[in-house]
């Protein structure tokens, strides 16, 4: 295991707004957007949009902009939380009011390499508490444990109403995979002397690894980084999906995230996505409207992954203001 390497585990921020402007956040100019990303220390690599949302592949992960919702997911040593002041400022200019905020992440492989405020979860919580408006008066921070100390799920949420008045935006499913199968991870390295653009090489990776088959209906924007690494955003009607791969041996990592519509189609996507990487360890988190059936979610996720040789090691569920019920499960491969 390397002393330090590229940190695959992402930090994820989701903000919900309300306002009269039907375009909402999509009205942000590219300059304003780049200013937000400058604070985080990442840049736009590729982008696409449809009637429902805009999707940006960033130098270190992804950004999804809906009229009243923004999801920003960044990896490495990016300072994700520093985007908040600038985002809130621009949103206010657009006449938008912040309703809820959810920040989550797994456990860093290289925690000592993280800059402030990502130096510890308490530091992150203090930073968030200080920068979110007082109108978001319901707040909660929790570390959801697993069977091993190597994995845990950190969640912070703040909302202006204990029971979310926002329309249910479906459930989201976030998957973090480590100890990727080596030969599969090698597919995410660029060949020496390949001078094609990152988009072209990315499109080839999407096809060769069958990532394109996870949701055949989605338009996939894949990007291959040099010398290795891959990111993709998928657009399917109003639903995004995203995959990020850090293929280096010793600290390999891949993430998959998508939105569910309630028909459980996303479980099929979950199974296919995990199959692409054959990881040694997987964590699956879902977030859905409160009052749902977490037992049903645990079984459904376990049923999707057990055929791939993955055994569930723990399951947890907790309610968070404005974020609904968050479930967390970890799996490990049953090695021969």
């Amino acid at each position, binding site marked *: 295991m390397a002393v330090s390497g590229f940190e695959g585990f992402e930090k994820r921020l989701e903000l919900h707004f309300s306002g009269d*402007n*039907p*375009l909402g956040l*999509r*009205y*942000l*100019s*590219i*300059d304003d*957007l780049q200013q937000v990303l400058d604070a985080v220390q990442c840049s*736009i690599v*590729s*982008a*696409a*949009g*449809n*009637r429902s949302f*805009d*999707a*940006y592949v960033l130098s270190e992960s992804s950004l999804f*902009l809906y009229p009243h919702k923004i999801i920003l997911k960044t990896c490495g040593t990016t300072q994700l939380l520093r985007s908040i002041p600038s985002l809130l400022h621009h949103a206010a200019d657009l006449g938008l009011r912040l309703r809820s905020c959810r920040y989550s992440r797994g456990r860093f492989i290289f925690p000592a390499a993280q800059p402030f405020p990502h130096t510890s979860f308490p530091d992150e919580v203090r930073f968030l508490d200080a920068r979110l408006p007082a109108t978001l008066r319901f707040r909660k921070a929790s570390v959801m444990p697993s069977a091993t100390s190597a994995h845990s799920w950190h969640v912070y949420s703040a909302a202006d109403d204990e029971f979310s008045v926002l329309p249910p935006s479906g459930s989201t499913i976030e998957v973090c995979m480590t100890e990727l199968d080596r030969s599969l991870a090698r597919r995410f390295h660029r060949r020496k002397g390949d001078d*094609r*653009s*990152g*988009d*072209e090489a990315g499109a080839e990776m999407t096809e060769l690894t069958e990532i394109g088959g996870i949701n055949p209906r989605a*338009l996939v*924007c894949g990007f291959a980084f040099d010398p290795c690494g891959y990111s993709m955003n998928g*657009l399917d009607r109003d639903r995004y999906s995203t995959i990020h791969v850090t293929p280096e041996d010793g600290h390999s990592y891949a993430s998959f995230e998508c939105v569910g519509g309630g028909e459980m189609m996303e479980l099929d996507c979950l199974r296919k996505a995990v199959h692409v990487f054959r990881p040694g360890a997987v964590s699956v988190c879902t977030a859905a409207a409160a009052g749902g059936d977490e037992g049903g979610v645990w079984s459904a996720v376990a049923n999707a992954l057990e055929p791939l040789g993955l055994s569930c090691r723990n399951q947890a569920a907790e309610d968070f203001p404005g974020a609904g019920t968050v479930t967390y499960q970890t799996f490990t491969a049953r090695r021969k």
Partner: protein
Amino acid sequence: MGHGLSAPAAFAAEEVDSPVLAIHSKNAWNDHWKSHKDSSKLMVIDFTASWCGPCRSIAPAIKAMAVKYTDVVFVKIDVDELSEVAQQWKVQTMPAFVLVKGGSEVGRVVGAKKDELDKKIAQLRA
């Protein structure tokens, strides 16, 4: 969606003196299509929408390509203004660049992929 809301100022301004021809009516499109089929030039149809941030992000690069490739015709179509044309070319995700020669599609780039588009144009313009 989008009607009655003007696009951000920066986007509207770059239409003035641009080598990218903005088509605003079905008649103008039909006329343009006829003249394209009679020529041997490569045409790049840039499908955009005023509410699409990625379209705005790549606009300066498209303008630069239009200046660079003088033997290629660049045309811009707003999918709300000419929704029939957008549907005909099966455009749902934007920006979408459809490359046409002699009346047939010879290439397509979906998304703000500057390098990929530039390469495809360079390859197909001959």
